[in-house]
């Protein structure tokens, strides 16, 4: 029994407990403890982050002549850490009042617990895959586990989940095709064999498997133009489920892409691989896909009027930063991309938790039906504030550090357009997160929300924990960067030269301890200046200058709808329906084909062409 076995067994145990006790009122608490135990199990393997080592599982099969093995290295460890933590916090969130209310509203709490436990288990299995076949199996398990999580809410989530599973199956089949191509060359699914053959393939032959695998794994990452499924699917999942999915689920695609692009093909090869009949390389293609994945979903998020949809769209956009950093291939960029996985998980979960808390209290996430909640739900507000600063990538939160690394890498690599694209994404994010926090927490408090209270501790505690993590890892990015350095050493990337406060190397220096210190010193001075002024008198929100107009509580004057009209008039038409159009074109094309094939089975007199065929065959024989 290796530590990995313990971990997987613990995870399996969690599923079993969820199955047995998921419907009990204490079930969530027990599950929280088992997730904590999983985290403990993972910590047994913490040594992985320091040296490029591998812990194999004693679980292995030989089937159809292929051996299936599972093992963990620093990369798996890092992703597993995020996965289990996301599961832990989501379950913690569910365990208390949220779950009670969910059940009271007719939700299936048992299934939610089971689904999250299954997701964690399947992700841990995927992360441990030791060959391409186990990778695919794990991949499918993860896909279907998230399908279960997405579909359990019913209502609008069903359409989204079906759309998801269609995309996911498309991706999985592309992966299978890619694996088949590799298998066709090697007759084996092991990583070394695949790496060997991918190294020896000619450019033209490398493209097919590379493209298929990237497309397939890219579906989960929701890379453009395969991104349409994600936002709705994540957003309609019940609160903590959405947080869990948003935090980690689509990052499995990144994990698999790292395995394929970096460990199997080798990033050097990708950087050199030319696109046929052009002067750009595969790396450029990937980078630009990543860049568009940043821009378009981010600006789509700007248009959303549902808080969860807005966050989910951002989840897609932030995935672009991870890939963009990663394909730059240097120490800074890949560190930024990898670190962003952690950072994104932390703030995204905090944001979803906060939104779920608001939904818990007010019953809606519609950005046009909220406002002013900061006075009633200050802790949720705080979590959201920390979260959005992280999401927007501003100092002093951790999102800034990872984005900084990506920017710096783009500068060093001499990619001005990609750099601008990344910044455009960040600015778009700032715009839309301001809309989010403004429409929910700032502005006018509605009359019907006058008497709501802060969410209970079982809900605020996880989001505050996450907020602290977001801040602390922003202050001391070295805490995360040490894991990243371990991964870089393991997968064969250049290793980042980090320090506790960031990095101090020839490629650039960033010391978040100083930056944050100075920033807070500045805030301190600002506060001293401010409070040395006269004493303040708190006024009611209706005591507001409205051109001499008398405001009353029944007037809705919160500016929420169509929040950026100027910008929308300008760039709205550019991206409004373009990708949806693509999807519906495929759909209606398929529908047409489907109808015509049905027509074949329904209308054409079958006897006639059987006869015709026979006659033709006979004629052929005669001649």
């Amino acid at each position: 029994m290796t530590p990995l076995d313990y971990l997987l067994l613990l995870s399996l145990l969690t599923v079993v407990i969820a199955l047995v006790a998921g419907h009990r009122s204490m079930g969530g608490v027990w599950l929280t403890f088992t997730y904590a135990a999983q985290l403990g199990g993972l910590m047994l393997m913490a040594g992985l982050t320091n040296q490029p080592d591998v812990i194999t599982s004693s679980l292995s099969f030989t089937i159809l002549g292929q051996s299936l093995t599972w093992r963990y290295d620093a990369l798996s460890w890092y992703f597993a850490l995020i996965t289990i933590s996301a599961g832990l916090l989501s379950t913690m969130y569910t365990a208390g009042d949220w779950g009670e209310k969910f059940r009271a509203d007719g939700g299936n709490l048992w299934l939610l617990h089971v689904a999250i436990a299954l997701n964690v288990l399947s992700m841990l299995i995927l992360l441990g895959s030791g060959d391409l076949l186990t990778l695919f199996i794990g991949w499918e398990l993860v896909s279907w586990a998230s399908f279960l999580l997405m579909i359990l809410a019913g209502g609008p989530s069903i359409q989204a989940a079906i759309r998801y599973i269609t995309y996911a199956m498309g991706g999985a089949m592309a992966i299978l095709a890619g694996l088949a191509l590799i298998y066709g060359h090697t007759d084996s699914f092991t990583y070394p064999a695949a790496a060997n053959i991918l190294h020896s393939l000619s450019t033209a032959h490398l493209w097919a498997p590379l493209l298929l695998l990237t497309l397939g794994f890219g579906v989960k990452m929701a890379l453009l133009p395969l991104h349409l499924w994600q936002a709705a699917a994540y957003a309609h999942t019940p609160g903590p489920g959405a947080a869990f999915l948003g935090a980690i689920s689509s990052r499995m695609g990144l994990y698999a892409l790292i395995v394929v692009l970096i460990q199997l093909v080798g990033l050097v090869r990708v950087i050199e691989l030319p696109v046929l009949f052009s002067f750009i390389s595969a790396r450029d293609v990937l980078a630009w896909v990543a860049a568009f994945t940043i821009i378009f979903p981010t600006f789509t998020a700007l248009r959303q009027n549902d808080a969860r949809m807005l966050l989910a769209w951002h989840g897609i956009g932030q995935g672009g930063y991870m890939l963009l950093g990663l394909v730059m291939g240097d120490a800074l960029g890949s560190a930024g991309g990898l670190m962003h996985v952690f950072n994104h998980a932390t703030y995204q979960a905090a944001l979803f938790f906060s939104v779920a808390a608001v939904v818990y209290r007010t019953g809606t996430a519609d950005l046009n039906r909220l406002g002013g909640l900061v006075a009633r739900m200050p802790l949720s507000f705080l979590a959201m504030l920390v979260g959005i600063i992280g999401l927007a990538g501003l100092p002093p939160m951790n999102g800034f550090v990872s984005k900084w690394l990506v920017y710096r890498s783009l500068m060093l690599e001499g990619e001005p357009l990609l750099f601008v694209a990344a910044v455009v994404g960040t600015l778009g994010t700032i715009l839309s997160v301001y809309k989010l926090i403004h429409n929910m927490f700032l502005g006018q408090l509605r009359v019907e929300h006058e008497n709501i209270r802060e969410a209970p501790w079982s809900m605020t505690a996880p989001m505050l924990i996450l907020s602290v993590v977001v801040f602390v890892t922003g202050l001391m990015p070295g805490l995360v960067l040490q894991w990243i350095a371990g991964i870089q050493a393991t997968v064969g990337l250049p290793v980042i030269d980090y320090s506790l406060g960031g990095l101090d190397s020839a490629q650039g220096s960033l010391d978040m301890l100083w930056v944050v210190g100075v920033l807070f010193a500045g805030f301190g001075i600002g506060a001293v200046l401010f409070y040395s002024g006269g004493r303040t008198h708190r006024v009611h929100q209706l005591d507001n200058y409205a051109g001499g107009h008398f405001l009353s509580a029944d007037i809705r004057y919160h500016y929420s709808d169509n929040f950026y009209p100027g910008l929308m008039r300008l760039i709205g038409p550019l991206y409004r329906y373009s990708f949806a159009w693509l999807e519906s074109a495929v759909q209606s094309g398929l529908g047409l084909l489907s109808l015509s094939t049905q027509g074949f089975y329904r209308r054409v007199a079958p006897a006639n062409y059987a006869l015709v065929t026979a006659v033709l065959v006979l004629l052929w024989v005669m001649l």
Partner: protein
Amino acid sequence: MIKDIPIIAEQAQQPRRTNPLAHVFDELMNFARSRSLFMLHYCTGCGAIELPPAMTSRFDMERLGIQPMVTPRQADILLVTGYVSIKTLKRIILTYEQMGSPKHVIGICSCTVNGGMYWQSYATAKKLDEYLPVDLYIAGCMPRPEAVISGLQKLIDNIKHGKSDNWKDYYQRYDHYLGNQQHLFGNNWQTPTDVIGEAREYGLFGPQTLGQHTELLESVQKPLQPLEMKL
């Protein structure tokens, strides 16, 4: 003509300051106040037409430190430039109460003094100082920019010497002003600003702050409580 309203505010019962530097500081603040006046010109009537020349190149208020501002929160002076109908007066009071003190009201044109040519009108408030503590009237129909500038300079002098404290009167005799307002607007008259609360908070409470009219106000509708954060 510039009519200087006598100081009617009673000195609040503040402990005597023994620190000489505090005196210097007060002088400095008064000076800064007098040299930096942001005005909100509430253009109720024809007098407003005389303000742009006062602001622009010919007379240039800015050299006196006077700037136009557009919201009461930022403003120090409320310029009421002409006749005040009852409907307008409500807005003027609302706007006035939203200004941060020290704040000053200047009535421009005869209409603000006694109703002027509208003195017979049923819809016009005749004396502005019945409803708001006016610091200064600049009479005339209409006063020319020179008169406006001159009036403002008078105000500056008053402020510099700490003599323009009429705004305190509004707090200290709120019942009086509120009574006049209620007389005009009816018994359910209410502004969103919690004048009594402010008076309490800043120690501007006077013997006549509360009275029968404020009782009536509180009986009609409780003042809006600010939205405190709740945990």
